């Protein structure tokens, strides 16, 4: 039987060995799998890890890809710090996008870019409302938020599917489940650089991260509300002793994280898609859970974790496109990477003891 014994303090050796060993094992198993499946293993690894850094526009795209992951991850950080397990950011992402998108489609001729700020606010409200359901069920009826938030993801997926096939379908879309294109005011533009032009898909929405990271850092470390969240997660009874209201905190973190997921959706769709379609998220809400934990529930950590995950996702896309490796294979590789990264993380805090079952 394997037992995990908490270390007295975080092992310094493992903070160095851990990540190196994780990468080594990932590469090793990657080589094994790719060779076995008949792909050039070294080239595949190059595509996944290094090709995203090979050109400046590709580097820009890393940030584009990381943008929604980081925004959702920051919201989830608040929940997880308070021991509130919001697993449904994917659904909140979709509902925020849907509400803001539907609103935008009401004004087909709006041109002012100020409109995008209204959309962000509405997206926040949409995501927050969707998170309000698990929040109210948890605080009033003590219903487990993991189940409710997760199941609402599938409700949201089917709901947006219904909307774009039905009420909001563009009559000119030749039967495709697509809404009309967003008005000009609802589109987030790419950032033009003098004498270079555009850098990949780099758009103004990415600037939101630059705002979000320091604000969220201040919030969790330097405000009373942030302190309350930390106390609730670390010792619920101590929170009660301090007079912090557990239910208020629970509802607040769920609303903020749902709201941020909605904002991430608005930015993602307004910048990269420009209309509503059945699939708007591609799993950002779920991947952000990993980003939040890989970033150790810390805003700066989440920034880096988002970039790492985005790199591998883009690298996997490159491998699919240039080498024809199926998505399931690159997905498998991503899984191996996360598995070993989290194992390394665990070994910093725990040691493993093997013992015979008696």
């Amino acid at each position, binding site marked *: 039987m394997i037992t995990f014994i908490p270390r007295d303090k975080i092992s310094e050796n493992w903070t160095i060995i851990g990540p190196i060993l994780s990468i080594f094992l990932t590469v090793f198993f990657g080589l094994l799998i790719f060779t076995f499946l008949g792909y050039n293993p070294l080239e595949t690894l190059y595509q996944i890890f290094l090709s995203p850094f090979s050109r400046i526009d590709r580097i820009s795209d890393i940030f584009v890809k990381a943008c929604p992951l980081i925004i959702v991850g920051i919201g989830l950080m608040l929940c997880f710090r308070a021991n509130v397990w919001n697993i449904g950011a994917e659904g909140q992402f979709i509902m925020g996008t849907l509400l803001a998108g539907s609103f935008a489609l009401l004004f087909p001729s709006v041109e002012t870019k100020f409109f995008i700020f209204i959309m962000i606010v509405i997206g926040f409200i949409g995501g927050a409302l969707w998170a309000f359901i698990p929040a109210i069920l948890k605080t009033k009826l003590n219903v487990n938020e993991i189940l409710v938030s997760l199941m609402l993801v599938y409700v949201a997926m089917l709901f947006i599917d219904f909307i774009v096939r039905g009420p909001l379908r563009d009559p000119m879309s030749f039967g495709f489940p697509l809404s009309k294109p967003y008005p000009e005011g609802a589109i987030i533009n790419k950032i033009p650089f003098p004498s270079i032009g555009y850098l990949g898909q780099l758009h103004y929405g990415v600037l939101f991260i630059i705002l979000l990271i320091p604000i969220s850092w201040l919030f969790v470390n330097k405000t009373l509300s942030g*302190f309350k969240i930390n106390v609730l997660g670390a010792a619920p*009874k*101590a929170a009660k002793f301090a007079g912090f209201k557990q239910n208020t905190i629970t509802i607040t973190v769920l609303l903020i994280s749902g709201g941020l997921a909605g904002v991430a959706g608005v930015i993602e769709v307004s910048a990269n898609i420009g209309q509503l379609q059945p699939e708007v998220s591609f799993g950002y809400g779920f991947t952000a859970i990993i980003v939040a934990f890989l970033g150790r529930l810390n805003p700066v950590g989440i920034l880096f974790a988002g970039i790492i995950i985005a790199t591998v996702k883009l690298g996997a896309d490159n491998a699919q496109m240039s080498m024809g490796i199926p998505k399931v294979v690159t997905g498998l590789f991503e899984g191996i990477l996360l598995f070993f990264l989290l194992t390394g993380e665990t070994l910093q805090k725990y040691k493993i003891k093997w013992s015979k079952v008696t």
Partner: protein
Amino acid sequence: MAIKKEPKILLKASKINKSFGNFVANKDIDISIAKGEIHALLGENGAGKSTLVKIFYGVLKPDKGTIAINDNEVSIPSPNSARKNGIGMVFQHFSLFPALTVAENILIALDKKIKFKDLISEISKLSKEWELFVDPLKRVSELSVGEQQRVEIIRCLMQNPKLLIMDEPTSVLTPQEIANLFKVLKRLASSGCSILYISHKLEEIIELADQVTILKSGKSIATIDAKKTNTKFLAETMVGKEITDLKKTKSMNVTKDIALELKGLNKAKETDFGISLKNVNLKVNYGEILGVAGIAGNGQVELMEILSGETQCEKENHILLETQPIGFKNITERRLLGIETIPEERTLHATVPNFTIAENTFLTYFFKYPKANNIISNLLNNPQNSKIESENIIKDNDVRCPEANPLANQLSGGNLQKFILGRSLANNPKVAIFSQPTWGVDIGAATSIRQKLLNLSNSGKAVILISQDLEEIFELSDKICVINDGALSKILPVAQITAEDVGLLMGGKLETSNEMETT
């Protein structure tokens, strides 16, 4: 009786060493336990008693040192192998599942396979033989603490132990239950089973033990014949200095002014394993200490939470501060009104273990900092604001810290308690309510905490002391009442009640408060 020459010594440990990081918990400890001997292990908190017995029970591995059982050197890598070597242990905090029956709980811990029916008959046999009466088919959640302890002991006896380790077994028992336990332990010893008995209660050790080994800062400093010593000598050897007696200035300043009053307070339990408070009436005057005795789990936690404001009262006038109804006031509002509570659990309730002392000060001080006209500093109201206060608390209360602004879990139990008390008392409360203030702290710290309580009442404050330690209750209180199953007995002056009465009340034997009045 034995034909072969059997060794007299059952367990002999030599040069046991164990460190946690830089902290040396056990240093070169030698101890030998004879067969059929009751061997007491005495020491202040943090002296290394628990570490040592955990090594014997296979929970911890020693860094150095050897353990021999019957002259054969053994290694004990796990509790399983400890049990195979004939070592059983009853922990201070019981490890029973409340939702399961007695028999099921025993079955879980059993290494051998046995039919359920045989198990029940075996339990009944053992419980009759040793007068450890429990119903094997009863659920543990329905048992009293004393009965739960019997289950733990039976569980050990099922394994035919040669050595039974008992970690502070009496801290949760009534005087009558303690007497019963001692009878059982003495019978066990005379039947040949050795007992390693951990305690910090000196009278008990004198009464029960044959030998006492005293630990101090991880070293074994003496092994004494318990029959030839006295409590004062034991205490001074344990602490390493002369013990200053409490300056008893009890009842100096008791007034007739009611400080806090509970009137017919009812509160239904919030969980299945909670206790409902039933028609609780209580009065405490300025300048007096009211002691609330009782066995753990009889509603002390619920009473504490309703006094502190952590749980909601059903009616506003259930609680009166002087004449002001405060039943609906929350804990922060009550702090502002001058009511401070010091809960039983020092970590995870009164403090957050992995937060710094400044952060833990901020925990109950945060509402003091906002200023009316500075939006930015109000927005950034954070633990940094508590820095000076936390440093003052540490200085004024002699809290010994390993570094400036340490994490709460870096402090020893006694020092953490000094911090918690200091944090509350720095607010200069009118009413201070303590739950188990000296639970698990060393004698030196306990004496200083008790002195603080006396000083508080002498300076005209009202003090409520909820404690399981009867000695402490009698030593400090001006008036005493007993909580049993969520109901409070009549409050009587300390001169009018004996320890026996309190013991009976604790066990729920004296039903109504009217009976008390006639005695």
